[in-house]
Protein backbone atom coordinates (compact mmCIF):
# COMPACT_ATOMS: atom_id res chain seq x y z
CA UNK A 1 0.00 0.00 0.00
CA UNK A 2 2.89 2.36 0.58
CA UNK A 3 5.55 2.09 -2.10
CA UNK A 4 5.60 5.35 -3.97
CA UNK A 5 6.36 5.04 -7.66
CA UNK A 6 8.68 7.51 -9.39
CA UNK A 7 5.59 9.09 -10.92
CA UNK A 8 3.89 9.43 -7.50
CA UNK A 9 6.96 11.23 -6.12
CA UNK A 10 7.13 13.52 -9.15
CA UNK A 11 3.45 14.44 -8.87
CA UNK A 12 3.70 15.06 -5.11
CA UNK A 13 6.80 17.25 -5.46
CA UNK A 14 5.26 19.26 -8.31
CA UNK A 15 1.99 19.82 -6.45
CA UNK A 16 3.83 20.67 -3.23
CA UNK A 17 5.91 23.26 -5.10
CA UNK A 18 2.63 24.91 -6.16
CA UNK A 19 0.98 24.90 -2.75
CA UNK A 20 3.75 25.12 -0.17
CA UNK A 21 3.51 28.91 -0.18
CA UNK A 22 0.09 28.49 1.46
CA UNK A 23 1.37 25.77 3.80
CA UNK A 24 0.49 27.64 6.99
CA UNK A 25 -3.04 28.32 5.81
CA UNK A 26 -3.52 24.71 4.73
CA UNK A 27 -2.25 23.38 8.05
CA UNK A 28 -4.35 25.74 10.16
CA UNK A 29 -7.55 24.99 8.24
CA UNK A 30 -6.86 21.21 8.24
CA UNK A 31 -6.33 21.07 12.02
CA UNK A 32 -9.36 23.32 12.64
CA UNK A 33 -11.53 21.12 10.46
CA UNK A 34 -10.27 17.96 12.15
CA UNK A 35 -11.28 19.30 15.58
CA UNK A 36 -14.71 20.32 14.26
CA UNK A 37 -15.57 17.30 12.11
CA UNK A 38 -13.95 14.66 14.36
CA UNK A 39 -14.48 15.99 17.87
CA UNK A 40 -12.80 12.94 19.41
CA UNK A 41 -9.47 14.38 18.22
CA UNK A 42 -9.87 17.21 20.72
CA UNK A 43 -8.91 14.74 23.44
CA UNK A 44 -5.27 15.22 22.47
CA UNK A 45 -5.46 18.96 23.07
CA UNK A 46 -7.09 19.19 26.49
CA UNK A 47 -4.08 21.30 27.54
CA UNK A 48 -5.14 24.10 25.17
CA UNK A 49 -7.19 26.84 26.79
CA UNK A 50 -8.86 27.54 23.47
CA UNK A 51 -9.72 24.65 21.17
CA UNK A 52 -11.81 26.72 18.78
CA UNK A 53 -10.90 26.79 15.06
CA UNK A 54 -9.67 30.39 15.23
CA UNK A 55 -7.47 29.96 18.29
CA UNK A 56 -3.74 30.74 18.17
CA UNK A 57 -3.01 27.19 19.42
CA UNK A 58 -4.75 25.71 16.39
CA UNK A 59 -2.84 28.01 14.05
CA UNK A 60 0.48 27.21 15.68
CA UNK A 61 -0.20 23.51 15.51
CA UNK A 62 -1.32 23.68 11.90
CA UNK A 63 1.95 25.40 11.02
CA UNK A 64 3.94 22.74 12.88
CA UNK A 65 2.13 19.89 11.14
CA UNK A 66 2.49 21.35 7.65
CA UNK A 67 6.18 22.06 8.24
CA UNK A 68 6.48 18.35 9.01
CA UNK A 69 4.66 17.46 5.78
CA UNK A 70 6.91 19.79 3.80
CA UNK A 71 9.96 18.23 5.40
CA UNK A 72 8.63 14.78 4.51
CA UNK A 73 8.38 15.84 0.85
CA UNK A 74 12.13 16.51 0.86
CA UNK A 75 12.68 13.07 2.40
CA UNK A 76 10.25 11.34 0.07
CA UNK A 77 12.88 8.78 -0.98
CA UNK A 78 13.29 7.49 2.56
CA UNK A 79 10.35 8.42 4.75
CA UNK A 80 11.08 5.81 7.42
CA UNK A 81 14.66 6.98 7.89
CA UNK A 82 13.87 10.64 7.48
CA UNK A 83 10.99 10.68 9.97
CA UNK A 84 12.66 8.52 12.63
CA UNK A 85 12.84 11.15 15.36
CA UNK A 86 9.31 12.40 14.63
CA UNK A 87 8.13 8.83 14.92
CA UNK A 88 9.82 8.47 18.30
CA UNK A 89 8.15 11.69 19.42
CA UNK A 90 4.69 10.46 18.40
CA UNK A 91 5.30 6.96 19.79
CA UNK A 92 6.79 7.69 23.20
CA UNK A 93 5.76 11.21 24.08
CA UNK A 94 2.61 12.14 22.20
CA UNK A 95 1.20 8.63 21.86
CA UNK A 96 -1.35 9.67 19.23
CA UNK A 97 -3.39 6.71 18.05
CA UNK A 98 -2.28 6.20 14.41
CA UNK A 99 -5.93 6.06 13.28
CA UNK A 100 -5.86 9.82 13.69
CA UNK A 101 -3.15 10.23 11.03
CA UNK A 102 -5.71 9.06 8.48
CA UNK A 103 -8.23 11.57 9.79
CA UNK A 104 -5.79 14.48 9.56
CA UNK A 105 -4.63 13.33 6.10
CA UNK A 106 -8.25 13.40 4.89
CA UNK A 107 -8.71 16.93 6.18
CA UNK A 108 -5.44 18.09 4.61
CA UNK A 109 -6.73 16.83 1.26
CA UNK A 110 -10.16 18.46 1.75
CA UNK A 111 -8.37 21.79 2.28
CA UNK A 112 -6.19 21.21 -0.78
CA UNK A 113 -9.36 20.58 -2.82
CA UNK A 114 -10.91 23.78 -1.50
CA UNK A 115 -7.86 25.97 -2.06
CA UNK A 116 -6.63 24.43 -5.32
CA UNK A 117 -9.74 22.97 -7.01
CA UNK A 118 -8.25 22.98 -10.48
CA UNK A 119 -4.91 21.51 -9.43
CA UNK A 120 -6.14 18.81 -7.07
CA UNK A 121 -7.06 16.51 -9.95
CA UNK A 122 -7.75 12.80 -9.42
CA UNK A 123 -4.14 12.03 -10.39
CA UNK A 124 -2.78 14.49 -7.83
CA UNK A 125 -5.31 13.19 -5.30
CA UNK A 126 -4.17 9.57 -5.62
CA UNK A 127 -0.47 10.49 -5.39
CA UNK A 128 -1.09 12.73 -2.36
CA UNK A 129 -3.27 10.07 -0.71
CA UNK A 130 -0.49 7.50 -1.16
CA UNK A 131 2.15 9.94 0.09
CA UNK A 132 0.19 10.88 3.23
CA UNK A 133 -0.47 7.19 3.90
CA UNK A 134 3.24 6.41 3.56
CA UNK A 135 4.04 9.38 5.80
CA UNK A 136 1.55 8.11 8.40
CA UNK A 137 3.09 4.66 8.29
CA UNK A 138 6.59 6.09 8.77
CA UNK A 139 5.25 8.12 11.70
CA UNK A 140 3.85 4.97 13.32
CA UNK A 141 7.07 3.01 12.73
CA UNK A 142 8.39 3.28 16.29
CA UNK A 143 5.10 2.60 18.07
CA UNK A 144 5.74 -1.07 18.74
Amino acid sequence: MTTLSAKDKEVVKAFWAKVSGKGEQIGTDAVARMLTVYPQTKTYFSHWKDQSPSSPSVRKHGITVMAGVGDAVTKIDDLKGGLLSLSELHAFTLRVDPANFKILSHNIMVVMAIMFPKDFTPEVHVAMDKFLAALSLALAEKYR
Partner: protein
Amino acid sequence: MVEWTDFERATIQDIFSKMDYEVVGPAALSRCLVVYPWTQRYFGNFGNLYNAAAIMGNPNVAKHGTIILHGLDRGVKNMDNMKEIYAELSVLHSEKLHVDPDNFKLLSDCLTIVVAAQLGKAFTGEVQAAFQKFMAVVVSSLGRQYH
Protein backbone atom coordinates in the same frame (compact mmCIF):
# COMPACT_ATOMS: atom_id res chain seq x y z
CA MET B 1 -33.18 7.14 14.71
CA VAL B 2 -30.67 9.76 13.65
CA GLU B 3 -31.09 13.17 15.20
CA TRP B 4 -30.50 16.11 12.93
CA THR B 5 -30.03 19.68 14.05
CA ASP B 6 -31.75 22.46 12.12
CA PHE B 7 -28.36 23.52 10.83
CA GLU B 8 -27.59 20.00 9.55
CA ARG B 9 -30.96 19.69 7.79
CA ALA B 10 -30.66 23.09 6.19
CA THR B 11 -27.06 22.46 5.13
CA ILE B 12 -27.85 19.15 3.43
CA GLN B 13 -30.89 20.54 1.62
CA ASP B 14 -28.88 23.57 0.55
CA ILE B 15 -25.88 21.63 -0.77
CA PHE B 16 -27.93 19.15 -2.78
CA SER B 17 -30.46 21.65 -4.12
CA LYS B 18 -27.64 23.68 -5.66
CA MET B 19 -25.76 20.65 -6.97
CA ASP B 20 -25.61 19.63 -10.61
CA TYR B 21 -25.94 15.87 -10.26
CA GLU B 22 -24.71 15.36 -13.80
CA VAL B 23 -21.42 17.06 -13.01
CA VAL B 24 -20.81 15.99 -9.43
CA GLY B 25 -21.87 12.35 -9.87
CA PRO B 26 -19.47 11.58 -12.72
CA ALA B 27 -16.69 13.58 -11.03
CA ALA B 28 -17.05 11.65 -7.76
CA LEU B 29 -17.30 8.19 -9.30
CA SER B 30 -14.44 8.72 -11.74
CA ARG B 31 -12.28 10.14 -8.94
CA CYS B 32 -13.03 7.04 -6.85
CA LEU B 33 -12.01 4.73 -9.71
CA VAL B 34 -8.71 6.65 -10.08
CA VAL B 35 -7.83 7.12 -6.41
CA TYR B 36 -8.94 3.64 -5.33
CA PRO B 37 -8.37 1.55 -8.47
CA TRP B 38 -9.54 -1.69 -6.86
CA THR B 39 -13.06 -0.28 -6.98
CA GLN B 40 -12.89 -0.89 -10.74
CA ARG B 41 -13.61 -4.54 -9.99
CA TYR B 42 -17.32 -3.73 -10.01
CA PHE B 43 -17.27 -2.14 -13.43
CA GLY B 44 -15.75 -4.83 -15.63
CA ASN B 45 -18.25 -4.22 -18.40
CA PHE B 46 -17.85 -0.45 -18.50
CA GLY B 47 -15.21 -0.48 -21.24
CA ASN B 48 -11.96 1.44 -21.14
CA LEU B 49 -10.77 2.16 -17.57
CA TYR B 50 -7.06 1.80 -18.33
CA ASN B 51 -5.93 5.20 -17.14
CA ALA B 52 -7.23 8.35 -15.50
CA ALA B 53 -8.02 10.06 -18.81
CA ALA B 54 -9.98 7.04 -20.04
CA ILE B 55 -11.92 6.84 -16.78
CA MET B 56 -12.74 10.55 -16.70
CA GLY B 57 -13.98 10.39 -20.31
CA ASN B 58 -15.88 7.12 -20.06
CA PRO B 59 -19.61 7.66 -20.77
CA ASN B 60 -20.67 4.59 -18.75
CA VAL B 61 -18.86 5.96 -15.70
CA ALA B 62 -20.53 9.34 -16.20
CA LYS B 63 -23.97 7.78 -16.55
CA HIS B 64 -23.48 5.67 -13.46
CA GLY B 65 -22.15 8.59 -11.44
CA THR B 66 -25.39 10.45 -12.13
CA ILE B 67 -27.44 7.41 -11.10
CA ILE B 68 -25.57 7.27 -7.80
CA LEU B 69 -26.27 10.94 -7.07
CA HIS B 70 -29.97 10.40 -7.71
CA GLY B 71 -29.73 7.55 -5.22
CA LEU B 72 -28.30 10.01 -2.67
CA ASP B 73 -31.19 12.31 -3.43
CA ARG B 74 -33.53 9.76 -1.87
CA GLY B 75 -31.71 10.15 1.40
CA VAL B 76 -31.76 13.94 1.11
CA LYS B 77 -35.56 13.84 0.77
CA ASN B 78 -36.02 11.31 3.59
CA MET B 79 -33.47 12.23 6.22
CA ASP B 80 -35.66 10.88 9.02
CA ASN B 81 -35.96 7.34 7.77
CA MET B 82 -32.90 6.63 5.72
CA LYS B 83 -32.59 3.06 6.95
CA GLU B 84 -35.97 2.20 5.44
CA ILE B 85 -35.46 4.24 2.30
CA TYR B 86 -32.17 2.45 1.53
CA ALA B 87 -33.24 -1.07 2.54
CA GLU B 88 -33.99 -2.14 -1.01
CA LEU B 89 -30.78 -0.62 -2.40
CA SER B 90 -28.85 -2.28 0.42
CA VAL B 91 -30.22 -5.68 -0.54
CA LEU B 92 -29.38 -4.97 -4.18
CA HIS B 93 -25.75 -4.03 -3.39
CA SER B 94 -25.35 -7.09 -1.17
CA GLU B 95 -27.15 -9.84 -2.99
CA LYS B 96 -26.99 -8.86 -6.62
CA LEU B 97 -23.99 -6.53 -6.98
CA HIS B 98 -21.85 -8.11 -4.22
CA VAL B 99 -20.18 -4.80 -3.36
CA ASP B 100 -17.92 -4.80 -0.30
CA PRO B 101 -19.54 -2.11 1.89
CA ASP B 102 -16.09 -0.63 2.65
CA ASN B 103 -16.30 0.79 -0.86
CA PHE B 104 -19.22 3.03 0.10
CA LYS B 105 -16.90 4.95 2.42
CA LEU B 106 -14.30 5.32 -0.34
CA LEU B 107 -16.86 6.81 -2.72
CA SER B 108 -18.19 9.00 0.08
CA ASP B 109 -14.68 10.41 0.70
CA CYS B 110 -14.28 11.21 -2.99
CA LEU B 111 -17.67 12.91 -3.07
CA THR B 112 -16.62 15.01 -0.08
CA ILE B 113 -13.50 16.14 -1.95
CA VAL B 114 -15.53 17.01 -5.09
CA VAL B 115 -18.12 18.97 -3.08
CA ALA B 116 -15.33 20.75 -1.20
CA ALA B 117 -13.72 21.80 -4.48
CA GLN B 118 -17.09 23.06 -5.78
CA LEU B 119 -18.12 25.02 -2.69
CA GLY B 120 -14.69 26.39 -1.83
CA LYS B 121 -14.70 28.58 1.27
CA ALA B 122 -18.44 27.93 1.76
CA PHE B 123 -17.47 24.37 2.73
CA THR B 124 -16.66 25.38 6.28
CA GLY B 125 -15.75 22.92 9.04
CA GLU B 126 -19.37 22.96 10.26
CA VAL B 127 -20.72 22.32 6.76
CA GLN B 128 -18.16 19.54 6.29
CA ALA B 129 -19.27 17.95 9.57
CA ALA B 130 -22.93 18.00 8.50
CA PHE B 131 -22.12 16.62 5.06
CA GLN B 132 -19.92 13.82 6.42
CA LYS B 133 -22.58 12.93 9.02
CA PHE B 134 -25.19 12.66 6.27
CA MET B 135 -22.88 10.51 4.14
CA ALA B 136 -22.06 8.31 7.15
CA VAL B 137 -25.77 7.61 7.63
CA VAL B 138 -26.16 6.79 3.91
CA VAL B 139 -23.16 4.46 4.08
CA SER B 140 -24.46 2.78 7.21
CA SER B 141 -27.97 2.37 5.72
CA LEU B 142 -26.56 0.88 2.54
CA GLY B 143 -24.62 -1.69 4.54
CA ARG B 144 -27.51 -2.51 6.85
CA GLN B 145 -29.06 -5.41 4.93
CA TYR B 146 -25.84 -7.30 4.34
CA HIS B 147 -25.68 -10.72 5.98
